[in-house]
């Protein structure tokens, strides 16, 4: 699947997007965050516990318990500040 990062999540991770193949057992947005957090210090920093991070699965807002089964694109970003 494609992972996208925006705003300070992008800055902390160090790149705007990447391809990733999470292992079996990574079934929800929250699982994916846990898996990413263990990938390296930049991910641990971006996804530090308590950081206000939102997610979208295939361009729709998704809660931590949302399934990522079959997802083509998962995005992580801070709470929105447009308008």
């Amino acid at each position, binding site marked *: 699947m494609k992972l*996208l990062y*925006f*705003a*300070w999540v992008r800055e902390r991770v160090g790149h705007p997007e990447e391809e990733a193949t999470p292992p079996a057992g990574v079934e929800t947005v929250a699982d994916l965050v846990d898996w990413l957090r263990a990938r390296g210090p930049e991910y641990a920093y971006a996804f530090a516990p308590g950081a*206000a991070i939102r997610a*979208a699965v295939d*361009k*729709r*807002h998704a809660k931590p318990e949302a399934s990522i089964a079959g997802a083509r694109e998962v*995005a992580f*970003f*801070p*709470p*929105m*500040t*447009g*308008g």
Partner: protein
Amino acid sequence: MAVRLQREPFDAGAEAARLTQGREEVGAVVTFTGLCRRGADSGAPLTALTLECYPEMAEQELARIEAEARARWPLADALVIHRHGRIRPGEPIVFVATLSAHRAAAFEAAQFLMDYLKTSAPFWKQEETEEGTSWVAAKAVDDDAARRWDEG
């Protein structure tokens, strides 16, 4: 009914005039234009604002919010324009127009569109001042403004 995502500035007056031209069934048009303020959230003078966005999702979310507004109020037309990229103080950022036979629907729908857009459309503001850049933090008051539409 349309949503537009663009880097270029827009002319709010020209957009409103174009929307209302020849629409004799329309008795009310409400427009809102959000501008880039000179003062950063820290109080320091702002050099520029950079709006980052997730373009495909932003278009989809704006269209979804607009469809929701049309389902709730009898609108003859609506337009949402949101800019991204680097914006200087005094320039427009966002435009919402709602047209209806009567003013109540137009006023309410315009406010609804802005309240929802602020909390669900994927845009992020970064302020640029002489001290450097910083990401704008989301405000609880904006969440509260969007939430009140869920209660009615």
